[in-house]
Every structure is written in structure tokens, then in C-alpha cells.
């Protein structure tokens, strides 16, 4: 749809801004099937699912690597390499592999959330104060307890920062999947482009942007709440 869109024709009169305001003010845009509220809920559910899937993979691996202080080079390389991979290409390739809709959205978004969570967990656990670790070992704690009772609590700040980045990033990836038939608020943009209702495209853009900013703000608060007070200075890095 969008790739073949004809040259843009400036809407007359009130223009696209007016159309966007009209669209956002119309109660019918919000309620009902395919409305903003339903798509927003879907967007949040997909975001939560993708972050959970990524966390299930990345947190244990990151904690294990950080505890053993190995694989640092690999995690950093993975993070850097993942920046160069175009998300859109991966989403479309997954779609051609038969992975469509919500499943593909979650997998693609989770793939790109793994490096962020992995590197933050790794750095958090590895960077735990060596004297605290030594004290725990001196008390006779086995390695697993050192990890769960000393290193992981000390890593909370960085892990929470990673979760916040991952949530915002995933909520930004989910609308891309709408181009390949996925759900969420991106559908408003994709549909608007397809039908050349540019006011709706603008409204969709505003909604997706607002959601990302709100999520960032909410998780900034969460990050602060879960970080023990003495570690808050470290979290600001």
C-alpha cells in the first residue's frame, strides 16, 4: 500500500492536522471493534508478551554469564550487531516463513529486546561490588546463593534500566509488525496510509508516540521504586 502511494496531495481547508483532531475527537474512533482502545490494549498485550519472552531468555543467560564473568565480548558484540539489523526486514522474513500476525510480532519484537536485557543483566551482575561478593563467599555461600542473594540484588538498578529500555523499544517495534498484518496501534497508521487518509496517519503517529512516552515515564518510576535507595545514584548512569 504505502510503497506505491501516489504523490502526496495537501488536503484542502482544515488540512491533515484538522482531520487528525477530528479523528481523535470522534468517540467512534475509540470504542468498538478495531477502535483505538481495543488496538491500544492489543498493543500493550503484545508488548508485555514480547518483553516477557525476551526476559525469560535474556535474564538467566545474562545472570549466568555475569556470574561467571565470561562472554562479555559476545554480549557487547550482539548488542552492537543487533543495531545494524533492520527490524522491518526480519519481521517481513518471519512473515514469509509463515509466522504471521501476533505470533510473529511477539517473536520479532522479543528478538530485538534480548540484547538490551542481556547486556544490562550481564553488566549488572558482573559489576556487583567485589567486596560484597567476597564477603558472601567467605560466609560459605555456594555460587548459586552468591548470585541470588548478593549479585542479583546489587544488579537491580541496571536490570530495571534494561527492562525500561526494552519495554519502550518493543512498543516501538510492535507497530512495524502492523505492516505485515500484526495488531496494535500501528494498524491505524498502516490503514491510514493504505486509504490515503493522512489525518488518520498523523493521529496514529501521535497515539504510538504518546504510548511510548507514557511507558517510558511509568517504567522510569518503576525503575526508581525497585532500586534500593543506596543504589539510585548508580542507576542514573
Amino acid at each position, binding site marked *: 500500500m*504505502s*510503497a506505491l*502511494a501516489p*504523490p*502526496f496531495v*495537501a488536503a484542502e481547508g482544515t488540512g*491533515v*492536522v484538522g482531520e*487528525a483532531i477530528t479523528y481523535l475527537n470522534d468517540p467512534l474512533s475509540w470504542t468498538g471493534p478495531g477502535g483505538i482502545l481495543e488496538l491500544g490494549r492489543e498493543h500493550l498485550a503484545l508488548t508485555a508478551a514480547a518483553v516477557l519472552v525476551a526476559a525469560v531468555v535474556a535474564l538467566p543467560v545474562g545472570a549466568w554469564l555475569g556470574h561467571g564473568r565470561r562472554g562479555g565480548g559476545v554480549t557487547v558484540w550482539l548488542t*552492537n550487531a543487533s*543495531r*545494524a*539489523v*533492520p*527490524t*522491518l*526486514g*526480519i519481521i*517481513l*522474513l518471519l*512473515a*514469509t516463513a509463515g509466522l504471521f500476525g501476533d505470533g510473529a510480532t511477539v517473536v520479532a519484537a522479543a528478538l530485538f529486546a534480548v540484547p538490551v536485557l542481556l547486556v544490562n543483566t550481564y553488566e549488572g551482575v558482573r559489576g556487583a561490588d567485589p567486596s560484597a561478593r567476597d564477603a558472601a563467599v567467605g560466609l560459605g555461600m555456594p555460587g548459586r546463593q552468591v548470585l541470588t542473594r548478593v549479585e542479583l540484588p546489587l544488579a537491580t538498578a541496571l536490570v530495571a534500566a534494561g527492562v525500561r529500555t526494552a519495554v*519502550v523499544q518493543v*512498543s*516501538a*517495534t510492535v*507497530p*512495524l509488525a502492523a*505492516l*505485515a498484518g500484526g495488531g496494535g496501534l*500501528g494498524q491505524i*497508521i*498502516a490503514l*491510514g*496510509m493504505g486509504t490515503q487518509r*493522512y*489525518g488518520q*496517519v*498523523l493521529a*496514529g*503517529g*501521535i*497515539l*504510538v*508516540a504518546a504510548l*511510548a*512516552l507514557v511507558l*517510558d515515564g511509568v517504567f522510569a518510576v518503576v525503575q526508581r521504586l525497585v532500586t534500593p535507595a543506596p543504589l539510585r545514584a548508580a542507576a542514573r548512569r
Partner: protein
Amino acid sequence: MVTAAATAADNPWFSWSYVTENADVLWARTTEHALLTIEAVAIAALVAIPLGLLASRVRWLAGPLLGTASILYTVPSLALFAILAPIMGIGRQPVLLGLVLYALLVILRNTVTGLDGVDPAAVDAARGVGHGPLQVLARVRLPNALPSIVAGLRLATVTTVALVTVGVVVGYGGLGQLMFQGFRNNFYRAEIMTATIACVLLALVLDLLLWAAGRALTPWLRGRSA
């Protein structure tokens, strides 16, 4: 050459014949992609590096400047293009502006970090031998901050190459056009895969070029570990 061949039975993930038969289109899209990336990063650098200099001088400006840039960075690329395109018109312009706004944060942050990290003793020494503020900036502070600035430019470039593809949603996505076209064209995998690989390679090449330029500009750092 594309349509009939791309059935489920005969739809390879990669095919050299696609690459050779469509070499000119691939090259045209890659050039378009590269030029858009370079232009966006160059404009972002021209804005962000002076702002970084200003922020390192006028301390209270650093917070608001970095805050604004990180809000822009938080807005999803698709949303940014969707907001800019209806206002600026479909095509290259909204994509370019969106990419510039994205690249600002990384370059600005690295410029400020780099300038903050300059050894105060070196600045004092330069003042001691009679350098004025501009000379201190040109001969001591900027050269010392250069590795951090180059790191910012590299990160911004790699990120921008990947982001250009999202521009397909407003009709100008460089290699992203081929990805989307392949998707709509009976899921022509070879086309999507080739464009994706080309995109990664382009990021790699531009990153290497910037790394080499940074190395050439900081001969005094050679021999130390990068």
C-alpha cells in the same frame, strides 16, 4: 522475472540470480539508502556537535538539551515518520528530518561526554602557554573529545542505516522499498533477504569508514588499545 517464479515450492531464501538480474535496482536503492544516511548524520552532527560544545560551556543547558533529545529518541521511528509525513508531504523530506532528530541524541551525548572527559591539566597547560579560548577548543578540547564524538557518529550511522528502512511507510525507505516490495510480491524471500543483507553490509561499510577516519584524525592514539 519475479512474479511467477515466487511460488511456495520455488521460493528460496536467497538466490544469486535475483542479485545478478536486479543488480542495477539493488545498486540504485543502496546508493539512495547510503546518501540519505550520510546526509542525515551530517546534518545531525552539524547541529549536535555545536550544541554539545554549548552544553559543556553553559552547564545548565546540558539537562534541557539532553532531555529534549532523549524525548525525541523515545518516540518510535514509525510514529515520527507518520507524524512528519502528513505535514511535510510523502517522500524523502519527512524521512530525512526524522532520521536527523533520531541521530541528535547519540551525537550530542557523546560530544558532551567527550568534552567533559578532557583532562583539566591539559586545558590549564594550553592556557598557560598563552592559548585563547578558541585555540584551547581547537587544539586541546576538541582533539581530546574526538574519539568519543567519532564513537557517537558511528553509533548514529549504524542506527540510521537500520531506521531508513522504516521510511517505506511514508514512501521512501531505500532498501526498505525492496523489502516491502518483496513482501507484497508473493512473499518473494530472496528480495527481502538480499535487501536485509545489503542493509547490514552498508551499516558495516559506513561504520568501518568512520572508524578509519577517526583513526586517521587521531594519530596520537595509535598503538594504544582502541
